[in-house]
């Protein structure tokens, strides 16, 4: 059987109730501020987001990419292309679990050739998801540059990968879990840090 869609660092089950074993490290206003800052940084680094394409990694990365796109449009009045890139078929741990359902890949109509692609994910952890995303990107076109934005960087990288835009650097133990909740998919915005044996 196929398991439900769960990325390696976040889940969407159970409600984000506070327990002694889990605490909110980012609340809704924090997330809003972080995304606003990232949007500004992207504009700054790419000199007005000219030629930028935002590609979110499903599920929550795709949501974040759309929010970033909206903010950039609000700040500068330019509509930049936003899409999603599913990395399931490029994962290096496929054989560790039953086959997973696929996420949605949706490239902007003009594609990614010659563009600056900003990959957007919710949590940066081992770096393996980003590695898979780079492989997937390689089969989809040839951007001039690829950058990475993440809401939370929790450390413990296993590959030589770093983010260009980080919402919050969050020191964690490997035994802990980081769960990201977003209004669009989960009914509220929050980032929780959970002890290993938390439900």
């Amino acid at each position, binding site marked *: *059987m*196929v398991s439900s869609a769960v990325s390696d660092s976040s889940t969407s089950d159970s409600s984000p109730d506070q327990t002694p074993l889990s605490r909110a490290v980012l609340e809704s206003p924090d997330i809003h501020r972080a995304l606003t800052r990232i949007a500004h940084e992207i504009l700054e680094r790419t000199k007005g987001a000219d030629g930028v394409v935002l590609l979110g990694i499903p599920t929550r990365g795709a949501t974040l990419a759309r929010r970033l796109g909206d903010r950039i449009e609000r700040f500068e009045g330019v509509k930049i292309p936003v899409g999603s890139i*599913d990395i399931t*078929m*490029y994962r290096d741990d*496929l*054989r*560790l*679990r*039953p*086959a*997973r*359902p*696929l*996420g*949605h*890949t949706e490239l902007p109509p003009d594609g990614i050739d010659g563009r600056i692609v900003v990959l957007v994910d919710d949590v940066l952890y081992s770096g393996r998801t980003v590695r898979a995303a780079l*492989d997937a990107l390689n*089969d*989809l076109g040839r951007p001039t540059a690829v950058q990475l934005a993440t809401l939370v960087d929790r450390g413990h990288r296993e590959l030589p990968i770093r983010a260009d835009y980080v919402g919050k650097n969050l020191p964690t133990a490997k035994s802990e879990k980081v769960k990201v909740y977003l209004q669009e998919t989960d009914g509220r915005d929050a980032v929780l840090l959970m002890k290993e044996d938390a439900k």
Partner: protein
Amino acid sequence: MNRHLISAGDLGKDDALLILDTAEELARVSERSIKKLPTLRGRTVVNLFFEDSTRTRISFEAAAKRLSADVINFSAKGSSVSKGESLKDTALTLEAMGADAVVIRHGASGAPHRLANWVHGSVVNAGDGTHEHPTQALLDAFSMRRRLGGLDGRKVTIVGDVLHSRVARSNVLLLATLGADVTLVAPPTLLPVSIDTWPCAVSYDLDAVLPKSDVVMMLRVQKERMNAAYFPSEREYSRRYGLDRDRFAKMPDEAIVMHPGPMNRGMEIAAEVADSPRSTIVEQVANGVTIRMAVLYLLLGGETS
């Protein structure tokens, strides 16, 4: 999903929808310039074909290759099999080669069930005798869904030699699972005696059913059946059960025409009907690769026992 895909009846509604949804995502791969995914690197898929069916074999081959699996084509003709090697010995040979999946086409109903006893890998039924052809039913359902939206409550009419059709068996089972209303139309000689126990309606009158159909699927009718007195002549069959231009005109405007191929143009289907924009016959072929990619991915793309 089960480890094997042998009968469309093995698929629950969730499984069937998962395959269709997966195929929907994979369909985009065929539109890319690089039509290949690395997912099944290091996996071996054997196409074990005891009957000639170039169309089905290359469809599975393309699907496996787009997922980067190694493909071994084992055609039984001219091999040790034609010299009397048993299916079991063939299975043990494939097992020794480390086949992760065996796609089998066989003239004997139930051969995939037997094969599954003798190999560890997944068995995918690519057509067994007069029993089933589940990936054909899946690609048909996929084609219907793409044209019509959902399948729930859709009226699907399947016309022709149901008795000997593996396509009909698999389609009836799958479409019932997906909530479509299936009506079989055939001369009584070409329906199983137990047809009243199937999850579908039956009619002998094509003209009465056509105006109420969202989908009309024409089955291939083998001319040899005439010799066994299933029907008197090609001409009479065509007149009573063929989809010609006049009958085509009786179908609702949005209704589509399907055929699993290969067609007898002029017998069960008129050429202009087969070539009309409401015919899905060409996209059925393209969708075949996509649906088989989805099946192979879901069977082999995760951990395997």
